[in-house]
């Protein structure tokens, strides 16, 4: 059984009428909301929370909120063990006061998002264990995001000491490579990792992408990501847009010789990936979370398409 869900990743929580309607029509009852990031403050030599979410609006009734904490690598690399213990206390306290201040109805899950590596695994796992000991986490499910490479290289990356994993099925290709077709999601890329899924020792929820972006290149050189970019309709259909002269388009300036690769989360591909993953996992109740809830993003999909993406994991 699939529990439908979305990530809400913007700092200011404020649902547009379209976003609300989508949640309602898809019978979504759970949102994974990023509460804050944890970074390293080098001046004070201590971890610090940044980009704390601001609830400009109460979440709609009937929607439970799962807080997500995004943790960068640096606090793990630099914190002492004592600092990690304190970080666990601080995270728990900020989650708790943040929920209370904003009168939020929380689910019984808390998620930590961290792209840990073999070199930070010990610190990360120690932090997760310390989090579990906090009163705020009692009787709660602690989940952690799992990247595909962390599944594949489990031997050296280890398995985080949490109750559930959230498998991120996106950002799987080489973004900077000019010949990459789509770095967000490709069934071929996913296949390289999916063989390792059936033996992963944690129950897994699944996150699938519904975002798109443009990747800017100059010749072969990666120049950066262009988001919230809407070229004219006939160009928007193309996978690549080449600029043969200096061009201003939708407020962006492009130079002669630059080109864009439009990377999307095509419904068919996302569904295919959902199916590939489903084949490998034991049938059980799990959340399927789409990244992410945003009216511009959901405008690219019909309700039926979103529904079919959720259903691909059945």
């Amino acid at each position, binding site marked *: 059984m699939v529990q439908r869900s979305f990530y809400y990743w913007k700092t200011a929580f404020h649902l547009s009428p379209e976003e609300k309607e989508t949640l309602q029509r898809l019978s979504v009852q759970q949102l994974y909301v990023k509460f804050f990031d944890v970074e390293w403050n*080098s001046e004070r030599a201590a971890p610090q929370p940044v980009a704390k979410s601001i609830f400009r609006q109460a979440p709609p009734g009937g929607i439970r909120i799962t807080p997500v904490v995004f943790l960068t690598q640096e606090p793990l690399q630099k914190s002492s063990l004592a600092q990690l213990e304190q970080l666990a206390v601080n995270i728990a306290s900020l989650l708790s006061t943040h929920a209370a201040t904003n009168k939020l109805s929380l689910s019984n899950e808390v998620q930590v998002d961290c792209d840990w590596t073999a070199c930070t695994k010990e610190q990360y796992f120690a932090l997760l264990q310390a989090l579990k000991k906090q009163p705020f986490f009692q009787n709660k499910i602690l989940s952690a995001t799992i990247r595909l490479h962390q599944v594949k290289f489990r031997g050296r990356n280890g398995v985080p000491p949490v109750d559930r994993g959230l498998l991120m099925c996106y950002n799987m290709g080489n973004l900077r490579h000019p010949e990459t077709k789509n770095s967000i999601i490709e069934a071929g890329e996913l296949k*390289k990792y999916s063989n390792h899924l059936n033996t992963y020792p944690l129950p897994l929820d699944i996150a699938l992408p519904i975002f798109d972006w443009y990747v800017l290149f100059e010749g072969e050189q990666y120049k950066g990501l262009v988001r919230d970019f809407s070229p004219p309709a006939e160009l928007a259909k193309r996978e690549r847009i080449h600029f043969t002269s200096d061009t201003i388009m939708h407020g962006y300036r492009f130079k002669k010789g630059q080109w864009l690769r439009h990377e999307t989360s095509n419904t068919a591909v996302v569904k295919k990936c959902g199916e590939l993953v489903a084949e490998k996992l034991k049938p059980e109740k799990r959340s399927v979370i789409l990244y992410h809830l945003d009216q511009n993003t959901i405008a690219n999909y019909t309700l039926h398409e979103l529904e079919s993406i959720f259903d691909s994991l059945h």
Partner: protein
Amino acid sequence: MNWKAFLIACTSAAATLFPGNGITCGGSEDPHDYFTSFFSNAVANGPEYRPFYYTSLLKFYDEDTWWEKPDDSLAVVDPAIAREWQAYGKSSSREDAIQLVYFSKTEDLQALAESIQTGKALPQRWQKNSLAQHFRNTKMNDAIRYLLFVKKTAPVSNPPEWEAQVKDSLQINRFIGEANEAYAKAPDAFLKDKWAFQRCKLSFYNNRHTDCIRWYDEHFTGNHSSAVANLALSYKAGSLFRTHQPDKAAYHYSKAFQLSDRYKKSNYTGFLWASDFCNQDLIAAYTSHCKNEEEKATMTAMFGMYGTDYRLPILQTVYSLQPSSPLLPLLATREIHKLEEQYFTPLLSHEKGGKSLYVSYTWHNDSTALRGHADGLAQVQKTAAFFEKLMQDKRVQQPGLYAAGAAYLRFMAKDYAGAKAVLAKASDSDEKIKTQMQLINLLVAANEDKTLTREREAKLLPSLQWLVQKARENNDFEIFCRNFFSQILAQRYEQQGDSARAALAYGLSDLTFLVNRRNNDYNYSSPTAIWYARDEMSTESLLQLYNLMTAPTTATEKFLVQYASIRRDDVIDVIGTSHLRDRDYAKAIEWLNKAGKPQPLVEERYDYKTDESTTINVDPFFDYLNDWQRFNKAVPVPYTKLTLAKKLQELETKIKSVTRGTDPSRLYYQYASALYNMSYYGNSWQALAYYRSGGNWNHGNYKLPWEKEYYGVHTAKQYYQKAYETATNKEFKAACLFMVAKCAQRQVVFPDYGDYPTYEAYEKAEAAAQHRFQNNALFAQFKKSFGTTKFYQYTYNRCSYLRDYVKKEQPSGRAR
């Protein structure tokens, strides 16, 4: 999402060539060392410009500072502010001022205020503090009131981190009222400045931007040099930005940038926002706000301190406006680094022997690279010509920098005579510049001859020794030294077909002669020399390397052997292995006998259920009828390459001496099994390969000849076939044919995803390969000839490929 870590984890190019890369720590490209560089940032620029050194991987060069030791408790102290308080309070000690202004608690200040008001003795904490004493003696309660106000309002700009909080704008308005009142009544200019600053700052944070601008103009116009005036200017700039006046905001940020070293980065961040991240189309309109050429030069330069595009026109404008601009050397160094990143590094990696050690540049489509090459070269030459002009102008700061830059760029353009001519004209007394020039001299000397002869090597030797010494002393030179040996010298040797010397040069680039590596937080540092020998050298060149290492004759050879990471024992092992790959067992034994400590042929098995690993002594002669059991039967004493070679030689001799009338089938079968086990699919792959990626298969494209057997098991198949042909026992014959079929299946070439333009095309090719894989014609023969044997039943139950094949063959509805 950490992109870089993810990319490394799934990029196989570097990991396959140098497996160390895949498993060392860091897992990211080093944003300060991701292209081939020989030009030091330190030559031109002071530490205040460090954030603006060139890197395309970070917004600011110093953003990622995890190699630096944290814990600088004085980082919060603004020395200018501390100095002013010290002077104001006539304190003899800067430390006293810092303690009182920055590190006192509210209750400490309250106690001090009480002491001033009541005449009570100073609290213990302040008794020895000269600033506190002065305030008490002169009854300067106003100063303490100000400090208490700063403590009270600190959360407005610096909210408590680990607390959820809601901004209280009414409360901030009350603070602003308090600051206004205190400003009006301030007893002296010092405190008036302070209160004026506070009301600017608080109004900014309370979104009262018009008030912020007005109050700044009211108080700080004219010649205000106090430290808070600079800070207030930034708030004014911020308020201009918030009130949609980005041009004026950028102008004010550029002024604030100029005034303070400490806040250069924060002011530049504001400038980036206001200038639409250095949108070049805005330069003319924005600089029209500048009052003089110097201001114009600064602001123009700031438009060139961000982004990856070449900015030579900006340098030219800055130079024409203010030749002595302190930003000009910074811009020049940035241009050199962009050319290194975008022209020089790809160029080196395209030349024969290019090692593409930097992951970002492992790929370059040849046609586009060629197109980019001509443009890049033109840019190098234009920039060099401009630097040559600057090096002769006495008005510029550090003309030697431009001389070094111009010579280096001429070198990049392969104009070695031009580079030497520039260096001959240059003179500079600055040590850093002299060192930089010496490095460029070495680069030219190592490249100007078509071939690196022994004579040239002898001439280079003192410089090579110097470079090694510099690597020991200096962070930058650690990288330059590594780059020189791996990207310049090794490459040159490879180009002239001297792999042995190339291996030694790689050996120096491994920098194992350094006791403590400084720049090793990222994963560049895997040993390249040994992997070069293992993966890219033929037996013949390995023997040359061995001879060179055994008896170096020239001084340069001795130097290279002494400092290279690669050891003679490693080379011996590779030579032995190389012979084993060629199935020349006598020579393999000869060489492996010389090797130091033989490595046992073992395999680590990881059990995720128990999270434990066990070591198995693999059996290279395992009868490979069932894939899953290949690690079940360990041998009591592990084989080594040497003992395996001996056993294989023995077997080969027996095969050769088989006489007529005897049955050689078991011998053939045993030999074939060993060859199969030593393949990619077997349990003893480590007898031939040093690294095995789980994601490979027979893709049909072999880097070295021995890989054809390693992936294609052709010889193994031949021997199974011979066994089949000579066997008489039907059950055994069945086993032989089954193994022939298995080898044939391994010879099905599977497509490599990267070779196909679309996923659909790849999927189609994969489906075709899969079809060939599953429709093994030999299975038909196997079933037909041996369907009634016990062995057939045994394999039918264990081999899913056979089962699938048989099921497909049967008409539907029939009992299975």
